[in-house]
C-alpha cells in the first residue's frame, strides 16, 4: 500500500514528534494551547509568504506574456520586489476620507481578509499538514469563502464614492451568481466520492486514474472546467474583474482605500486565487497525492520521494498559471455578458451535469 512506502521528507513525523513531546511535558490542554498558537502563527506566516510569492510570480508571468521583463530591479531578477512593496504598503499613510461611514469603512477589509484566512486554514496542504479536518469540509470551504462578499459590499457602500458603489453592486451580483456554479460543481464531486470530508476525498484519489477528474470522466471534466471558471470569477480577477474594472471604475470598490487597508484587499485577492486553485487541486486533482501509476513501482517510488506538500503546491501552481494565462488574454466581460454566462450557460449545464453524475454513480459507470 502506498502509505507504507517511506516518505523521507514528509513533515507528519515532525508534527507527531512535536505533539508527543509537548504532551509528555505538560497536561493535554497546555499542549493543545501551544499547538494552536503555533499553528496560527505558521498559517499567518504562510498566508503572507504565499501572497507575496504570488504577487511576484504574477507580475513576472504577466510581463512575459506581454513581451516585457517584469520586475528586475530589487534583488536578482527582482525577487524581493514584492517584499519591498509590502514594506512600502505598511509604511504608507492611511488617508482619512471625508463623509465615509467610519465603522463599516474600516471593518470592510477585515471581512475580506478573515474570510480568505478561514478558508486557507482548512486546506490540506500535505500529508499531515491539515489543520482542521471537518467532516463537512467542502461545505465549510464554500460557506466561509462567501463571507468576503460582505466585505466588498461594505467597502463599496461606505466609501461615499459612486464608482465604489457601482463596483460593489456589480460584485454582489457576480459573486452570488458564481457561488452557485462553484458550489454545484463541487457537489458533483461530492456525489462521486461520497464524502464532504477533505481528507477522505484526497485519500480516495490514490492512483492517477482515481483522481476525481479522471474517475468521473466526462461529468467530472465538465465540473472541473466550470469550477475553474466560477472560481476565477469569484476571485474578481480578469476577465471577471468588473467590480474593479480599471478602465471604467478606476478601482471599483477599493478606490478610496489606501495603505494597509488596501494591502488587505490586495493580499486577499491573491490568496483567493491560491485558495480556488487549492480547492480545485484537492477535489479534482488528487490533492497532495503524488502521481502514482498502477504497476509502475519504480516510478511510484521515485514520485513518493517528492514530499506531498510539493505535489500540492505544484498542482496548485499549474492551475494558477492557467488562471493568469486566462486573465492576461481576454477582455473584460460586461455585466450582462457575465450574468448570461452564469445563468444561461454554466448553471443549466451544471445542473444537468450533477444529474448525470448521480446516474453514473448509481449505475457504477465511473472508473473504479
Amino acid at each position, binding site marked *: 500500500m502506498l502509505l507504507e512506502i517511506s516518505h523521507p521528507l514528509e513533515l507528519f513525523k515532525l508534527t507527531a514528534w512535536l505533539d508527543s513531546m509537548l504532551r509528555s511535558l505538560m497536561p493535554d490542554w497546555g499542549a493543545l494551547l501551544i499547538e494552536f498558537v503555533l499553528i496560527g502563527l505558521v498559517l499567518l506566516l504562510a498566508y503572507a509568504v504565499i501572497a507575496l510569492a504570488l504577487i511576484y510570480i504574477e507580475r513576472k508571468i504577466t510581463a512575459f506574456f506581454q513581451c516585457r521583463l517584469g520586475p528586475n530591479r530589487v534583488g536578482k531578477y527582482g525577487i524581493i520586489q514584492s517584499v519591498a512593496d509590502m514594506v512600502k504598503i505598511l509604511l504608507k499613510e492611511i488617508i482619512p476620507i471625508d463623509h465615509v461611514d467610519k465603522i463599516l469603512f474600516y471593518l470592510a477589509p477585515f471581512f475580506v481578509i478573515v474570510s480568505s484566512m478561514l478558508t486557507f486554514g482548512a486546506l490540506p496542504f500535505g500529508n499531515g499538514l491539515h489543520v482542521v479536518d471537518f467532516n463537512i469540509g467542502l461545505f465549510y470551504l464554500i460557506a466561509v469563502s462567501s463571507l468576503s462578499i460582505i466585505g466588498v459590499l461594505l467597502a463599496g457602500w461606505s466609501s461615499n464614492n*459612486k464608482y465604489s458603489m457601482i463596483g460593489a453592486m456589480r460584485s454582489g451580483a457576480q459573486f452570488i451568481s458564481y457561488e452557485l456554479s462553484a458550489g454545484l460543481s463541487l457537489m458533483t464531486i461530492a456525489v462521486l466520492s461520497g464524502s464532504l470530508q477533505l481528507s477522505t476525498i484526497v485519500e480516495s484519489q490514490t492512483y492517477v486514474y482515481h483522481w476525481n477528474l479522471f474517475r468521473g470522466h466526462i461529468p467530472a471534466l465538465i465540473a472541473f472546467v466550470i469550477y475553474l471558471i466560477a472560481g476565477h470569477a469569484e476571485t474578481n480577477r480578469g476577465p471577471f474583474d468588473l467590480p474593479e474594472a480599471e*478602465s471604467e471604475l478606476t478601482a471599483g470598490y477599493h478606490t478610496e482605500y489606501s495603505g494597509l487597508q488596501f494591502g488587505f484587499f490586495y493580499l486577499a485577492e491573491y490568496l483567493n486565487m491560491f485558495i480556488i486553485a487549492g480547492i480545485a487541486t484537492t477535489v479534482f486533482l488528487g490533492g497532495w497525492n503524488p502521481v502514482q501509476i498502477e504497476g509502475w513501482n519504480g516510478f511510484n517510488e521515485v514520485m513518493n520521494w517528492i514530499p506531498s506538500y510539493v505535489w500540492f503546491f505544484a498542482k496548485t501552481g499549474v492551475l494558477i498559471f492557467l488562471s493568469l494565462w486566462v486573465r492576461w488574454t481576454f477582455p*473584460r466581460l460586461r455585466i450582462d455578458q457575465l450574468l448570461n454566462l452564469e445563468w444561461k450557460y454554466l448553471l443549466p449545464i451544471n445542473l444537468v451535469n450533477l444529474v448525470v453524475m448521480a446516474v453514473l454513480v448509481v449505475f457504477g459507470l465511473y472508473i473504479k
Partner: protein
Amino acid sequence: MNFQAGRLIMEKIKEIILAAVPEAILEDKQVLTVTVEADQLRLLAKTLHDNKELPFDFLSQLIGMDWGDSLGVLYLLSSSADLSKQLLIKTAVKDRQNPLLYTVSDIWETANLNEREVYAFFGIRFINHPDMRRFILNDDWHGFPFRKDYDEDPAINPLSLESKEIVDVAPRIIETPNGLKEEKVPVFDKDDYIINIGPQHPSMHGVMHFRTSLEGEIVKKIDVHSGYIHRGIEKLSEKLTYPQILHFTDRLDYLSANINRHALCMCVEKAASIEIPERAEYIRVIMDELNRIESHLLAWACMCNDLGAITAFIYGMREREMILDIFEKTSGGRLIINYNVVGGVMFDIYKDFQKDTKAFIIHMRESLKEYHRLFSGNVIALGRMVGIGIMKKEDAVSYGVTGPAGRGSGWSCDLRKYLPYSIYDRVEFTEVIRTECDSYARYLNRLDEIEESLKIIEQLVDNIPEGDFQAKTKAIIKIPEGQYFQRVETARGDFGVFIESHGDKNPYRLKFRSPSMALVSIMPLICKGEKLSDLIGIGGSMDYVIPDIDR
C-alpha cells in the same frame, strides 16, 4: 474626370442660392463664398441643406470671426455625397455689445458645440440654441479672448486654485412670439445619479470630462465638458509667423502630428505660391501614412485596453515603437516630430530609411494577423463591440463624424479620395467602408486602414525621386490677403486649416477644424441607453484625442 459636371452642379447651386436669397453676394474664390445678412442666414442654410441637386448636409467648419467693425461667422459646407464640393457662407453682425445670430444647430448638429465655442471666444450668442454655455472656457471667464480688442491683463482673469462647483444649468435665448426670451434650464433631472467620468480617468484618452447620469448600469445622458487642456493655440498663432505656428500643429492631435503639420504647410504653400519638390511630396506622404498606422495602432491598443485586454495594449505599443524609431531617425522626434516645413521637409530621409520601412511593412502584416487572432474573433470582445454604439449615417453626417468612425457608418468621406492633396491621386488604395455602424465596424476599419496605408507606403518607398527635399523660401513668408482653406484626412478624419490673411507675416485669424470634436459631440447620442462599460468601449472605438478638441 467629370469636372464639367461638377462645374454645372455648382452653377445650379448658385441659381438655387440666388432664387432663395436674391440679396446674397456670390464670389468665386478658392471656395465659392456666399455673403448674406444675418437675418437671412437660416433661410440660406435650410435651402442649401435641403436642396435636391446637391444637399450641403455636412458642416465641416464653423469659424467665428472678428473683423474689427463687425463680428461674424463663417460656415464651410460640404456635401456628404461628394466632399469635394465646398461652399462658404459668410455672415456678420455689427453689434459688438450684444451680438446675436440665429443658430444652425438644428440643421447641422455639429454646430451645437461649435457655436458654444464661438460664444466663448467671440461672445456671439445664438438664438434658439438649446444650451448656450461656454465651451472650452469657464463660465465665469471675463471677456472674449479672440476679439481683437480683448484685454489680456491677467488681473482680469486671475489664476484660481479654488475648486469650482459645476453648475448644471444652461442659459439659452429663445425666440417667442413676444420677442426674445432669456431663460435657464437644468441640464440634468433633479434626482439623476451623476458620475463624473474624467477629467482624470484611466480611459478618457486625455482630460475629457463626461458628466454622465446613470440608471443602474445604463447611461441616461452625457454632458460633455472640455477645455481642461486649452492652450489658446489659435490665439497665440495670431502673433506668430507661419514657420513659428507650425510647431503648434504637432500638439493638436499629437497622434496625427505629421498630417496636421502637412495641412498647415500646404495651406501656406498654396497661399504663398510655393512649389514643393517632388521628393518632398513623396517623403511627406510616406511619413503621413506611417503616422496614420502609428495612430491606428495606438487606437487599437487603447481600445483593447479599454475593454480590459491589457496584453493586447502592449502588443500594439510594441509595433508602434518600430514606427517611432523610424520617425526618430528621420526627423529627430518621436511623437512630436516637427518634420514638415513650409517648402518641403526639414531633413532628407536617412540612409536606411527604405530598408527599415520595408522591414516594418513585413513585420506589421504578421502582427495584424496576430491581432485578429488575439482579439478580433474573441467571443467576449465581439459581445462588447458588435451592435454596440450604433451611429447611423445621417447622424454621422449631421455631427460631422469623419475618419474611420464615419466610414464605419457607411459614409464615404476619405478626403484623400475626394480632395486628393499632395500625391494621393497617384497612389492606389481602397477606401475602407463598412455599413454596420457599430463599434466593431469602427474597430475593423482601423485595422483595415493600416493595411491600406501599408500598400500606399509600398508603392512609394522605392520610387522616391532624387532631388531637393525642400524648396527655397523667402526669409519671411507673407501670405497675400484672402481666406485659405486646406483639408486633409488625418487618422481621425477631416482636419481643416483656415487662414484669413491680411497680407502680413502672421495670420489675422487661424482656425483648426478638429475631427475629434465631432467624435466627442456624437458620444451623448450613441451612448444613450448603452451600459457604462460600453460607454468606455464606444469611446475607444471613436478614438478621440483631447488636445485636438481643446486646441
